């Protein structure tokens, strides 16, 4: 059973009840080089393993890039 979520503005299907840590693993994103915003709320890094993704979630995965 999978549900649809928006990850960085793109629709994506993930396993129902998947944690953010599992989502990162699926996307090959190291957890120490990402900041996650779930439905406009920042999720602390130590919560990645507990926070679950729900259908319709808006997930933003961001980090530092070059800038002035």
């Amino acid at each position, binding site marked *: 059973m999978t549900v649809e979520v928006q990850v960085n503005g793109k629709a994506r299907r993930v396993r129902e009840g998947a944690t953010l840590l599992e989502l990162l693993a699926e996307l090959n994103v190291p957890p120490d080089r990402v900041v996650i915003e779930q439905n406009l709320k920042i999720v602390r890094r130590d919560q990645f393993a507990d926070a679950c993704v729900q259908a319709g979630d808006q997930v933003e995965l961001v980090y*530092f*890039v*070059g*800038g002035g």
Partner: protein
Amino acid sequence: MSSGEPVDDALVIAGHRIASRLIHGTGRFASDQVLNACLQAARPGMITLAVRRLNLDGNGRSELEGVELKRHTLLPNTAGATSADQAVRLARLARAAGLSDFIKVEVIGDPDTLLPDPEGTLRATRALVEEGFIVMPYTSDDVVQAMRLCEAGAAAVMPGAAPIGTTLGLQNLLNLELIVRKVPVPVIVDAGLGVPSEAAHCLELGAAGVLVNTAIARAQDPPLMARAFAEAVVAGRRAFLAGRAHVGLKVLSSSPVEGIPV
């Protein structure tokens, strides 16, 4: 009078000792190798960064790939924000990375000139100071706006020399000098510098530092230019501390006027 030896004269922002008066941007570099070479050549006091969505397609290497962020004092920016709310959101995301409480507030008011939005910048500054950030707003060369940002709790103010990325240099020297006189916090001249002599000039008139990005990233030899800027801020600061000689139309012979053999 001193011995002419360098004195301990570190830049301090909100209690943090900043080892160099050059703040180094990290955007628009040809590769992460070039950026790394520049950072090693310049040894900047801080580096600026932007916050963006991760590229999840797995292609394209970030300029920051090879940069050890923990070795630097980070000054993340809110570039991309056109409102105070967006700037606050980006600032919170930057802080959640857990590497820095500094934030360069950047709220753009006009997409063509990339000049800052005065009201949005002020509102974002107030909100982020309230949340405990060390706020360093990018501002225009408007003297009173710089004063208001300072009153709002900015730890430093960052007036532009010229519009972002233009390298047009010091377009309003008088206003920069007035800002330095009027605000009690460090003034970091940001945006538009083109060559190291302009950076030295900023420091000579009392600016606490400069932020340089495009002038280094797009130089013919970026690491060499990075080093040149780092040396320019040292020279400019020493000149400021030394205090310039009189300026004016009164001529003075440098050689003795007596004892000329006739």
